[in-house]
């Protein structure tokens, strides 16, 4: 009896063990057979911020346009990697002598992914959507405020009439504001791909990825990949690990430059170091009494060794700038050394200002570039006798609430990544509360200049006004650090548009 039980007992364990082994074997076999029989050319991009909506005109986040612009959705005109204006859906365009009427001639070959032709009336319907949809972002509404009428005299032509000449408007049309939606799908843009680009989006796995599939009927140069996946990582280590493991083809933007040393093997990786539109801006609260004094602001600017700051904070990557503009802006003036680092002069200037300096509250978003810069600035200000406290606020919610909305700070540090955002200094209600009527007049005049040359001259002056007035301290231009497998070619080192432009990208 005992003997039989013993045998049964043992065999039960053996059976369990066997079942376990079989299950493991099946899993391993399944894992090994995942190679598809037909070769699908896949391209995988690692990114850090996920879109909030698939209809990029309804969310202010830059993560949507990163995927969609120029890849899924096309515009009449586009900006290339060097910041130059180029044709896209429009093969050419004319501007009236008074700068108010823009006539675009649509490329007759252009079609949407559905096969429908891109026509003037599709452009009119897209503009109508932006203006009538309650969900359209405030930024886009402001950008389109100058448009009086949009008409389509025939299929190949669309005419925009502006209320007044605007040098910025055509530039806005190269981005989200100029997207042309497929009129048959325009109401469903949040759930369906409705573009004319080389790819169509086919899946959004929330929290993980967006998948683009080749538009087989693309009217331009055929896309080089069958499937492109944007994978999203909240953790920078996980992003780097995925690249090191060979799971990714590209890291779209390295968040921590010290991580670049992991990719120093040039037989495997290429590191691109280009320009962005991001000015890391140390903003003053111009409502703080001590900071209303121009000499105090100048003294603070001189006290900070920005070249050393870039080395300490951003591993020496990034470029010195001296005003609210980056080198790829058409109106850029090099003011990087207009107010050089000089501790002695800073001290003298501070003393001559006669202002009794209170303890300044540096309140920054808890983002790597900001918190590291804040520590550097705090010790630099200590050198010239200004006491500071540093607060790190969760971003975006807490920083937006306390600094941006309530103005509860003296100094803050934020990378302003929107393109051509110098006009932010012309808005006295913006969180810096910078109120300089001369600057405001200059910016308003610039936009309505009839010629590009006059506009460029005004914009150059505007940058100088900000620097002379020490309206803020521009710590550095955020570099665009991209890591690719060294087999990847055709990627622009500069990120001057919101798009992660796939059109020229290939893999050997």
């Amino acid at each position, binding site marked *: 009896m005992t003997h039989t039980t013993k045998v049964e007992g043992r065999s039960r364990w053996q059976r369990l063990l066997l079942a376990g082994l079989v299950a493991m074997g099946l899993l391993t076999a*399944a894992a090994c057979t995942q190679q598809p029989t037909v070769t699908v050319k896949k391209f995988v991009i690692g990114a850090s911020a996920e879109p909030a909506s698939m209809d990029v005109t309804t969310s202010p986040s830059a993560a949507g346009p990163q995927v969609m612009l120029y890849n899924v959705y096309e515009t009449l005109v586009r900006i290339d990697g060097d910041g130059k204006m180029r044709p896209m859906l429009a093969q050419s365009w004319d501007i009236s002598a008074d700068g108010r009427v823009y006539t675009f001639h649509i490329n007759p070959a252009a079609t949407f992914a559905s096969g429908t032709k891109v026509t003037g009336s599709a452009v009119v319907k897209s503009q109508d959507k932006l203006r009538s949809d309650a969900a359209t972002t405030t930024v886009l509404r402001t950008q389109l405020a100058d448009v009086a009428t949009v008409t389509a005299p025939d299929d190949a032509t669309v005419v925009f009439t502006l209320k007044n000449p605007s040098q910025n408007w055509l530039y806005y049309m190269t981005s989200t504001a100029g997207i042309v939606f497929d009129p048959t799908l325009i109401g469903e843009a949040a759930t369906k791909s409705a573009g004319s680009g080389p790819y169509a989006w086919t899946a959004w*796995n929330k929290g*993980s990825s967006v998948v683009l599939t080749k538009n087989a009927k693309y009217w331009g140069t055929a896309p080089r990949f069958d499937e492109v996946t944007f994978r999203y990582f909240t*953790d920078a280590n996980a992003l780097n*690990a995925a690249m090191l*493991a060979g799971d990714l083809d590209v890291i779209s933007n390295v968040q921590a430059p010290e991580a670049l040393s992991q990719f120093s093997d040039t037989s495997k990786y290429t590191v691109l170091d280009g320009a962005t539109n991001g000015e890391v801006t140390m903003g003053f609260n111009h409502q703080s009494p001590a900071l209303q004094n121009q000499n105090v602001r100048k003294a603070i600017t001189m006290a900070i060794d920005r070249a050393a700051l870039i080395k300490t904070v951003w591993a020496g990557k990034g470029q010195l700038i001296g005003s609210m503009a980056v080198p790829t802006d058409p109106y850029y003036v090099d003011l990087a050394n207009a107010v050089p680092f000089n501790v002695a002069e800073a001290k003298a200037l501070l003393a001559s200002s006669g202002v009794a300096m209170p303890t300044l509250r540096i309140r920054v978003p808890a983002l790597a570039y900001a918190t590291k810069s804040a520590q550097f600035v705090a010790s630099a200000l200590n050198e010239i006798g200004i006491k500071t406290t540093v607060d790190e606020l969760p971003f975006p*919610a807490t920083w937006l609430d306390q600094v941006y909305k309530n103005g509860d700070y003296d100094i803050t540090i934020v990378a302003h990544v929107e393109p051509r955002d110098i006009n932010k200094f012309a808005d006295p209600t913006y969180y810096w509360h910078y109120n300089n009527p001369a600057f405001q007049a200059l910016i308003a005049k610039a936009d309505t200049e009839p010629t590009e040359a006059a506009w460029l001259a005004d914009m150059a002056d505007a940058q100088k006004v900000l620097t002379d007035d020490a309206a803020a301290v521009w710590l550095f231009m955020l570099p665009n650090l991209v890591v690719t497998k060294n087999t990847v070619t055709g990627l622009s080192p500069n990120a001057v548009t919101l798009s992660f432009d796939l059109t020229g990208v290939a893999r050997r």
Partner: protein
Amino acid sequence: MIRRVGARLGILAASLLAASVLIFVVCSALPGDVASVILGEGATPDQLATLRHQLGTDRPLPVQYLSWASGMLQGDFGRSYLSGDSVASLLGPRLAVTFWLVTFSLILALLVALPTGMYAALRRRHWDGFIATALAQIGMAIPAFWAGLLLVAVFAVGLHWLPANGYVPFAEDPGSWAAHLVLPVLALGLIQGAMLTRYVRSAFIDVLNEDYFRTARAVGWTQGRAMVRHGLRNASLSLVTVLGLQLSSVLVGAIVIESVFALPGLGTMLLQVVTQHDLQVVQGTVMFLVAVVLVVNALVDVSYLIIDPRLRGERE
């Protein structure tokens, strides 16, 4: 017995109520305003006020609490402020990821802990038993995220055997699904297993000193056999308790592991919505997790009554 179960359910209801109040109060005290996150730059005070009114965040806190709590009683966990999706529909796909991670990790933890713990108990006065205990101690001292990073460095970056991170749904590609889960489950399961090993060891050391165990040995049963046939059943009472308690530590561990392995589960969603200040989703998710832990622990308590006849009460 029924009265005892009833009393336990009463305690469960009271704990759920207390937890919901606590979660609501803490979430309301977080600084930040979801309206300014939604509208982004350039929003006017008027637009902000209108949006706050639409979202209902301008109502008094007790009113907000009551509408949230009464909604949950009807199975409505609220809606995301940002996307307008219902919290339940956001939780659904995320839940599957966390469920597989937690379930496989607990199973792995048990597979590691039961044999190791039993062995360590039997051989507690020998060098090999000591080594088993020491290994468990070391395992406990390793943070799960570090174990995760180490596994990624070896098996993904070094050997290229497995993907470093990410997730593929089972329905899309079962093989790839399994491959993506191996490392996170190992990281979470081994560390939890190490913790559990210590409990198993002490539970079995208690059993070894019992009279029935000595009797079993005296009639000629081998030590291992006596252990499995008598020990396991008797030690299970304290093990079930520990397992119930460990569920909460596995869930916390899962949040960290999900972020290390970029898994789109409840943990990564929670981190994301906290920074976006989408409080309805934060509240709903935390409440859901707390409810799972409380319900499981209540079930554990009820299961004692089934496992151990002595607890069923003198009166019945």
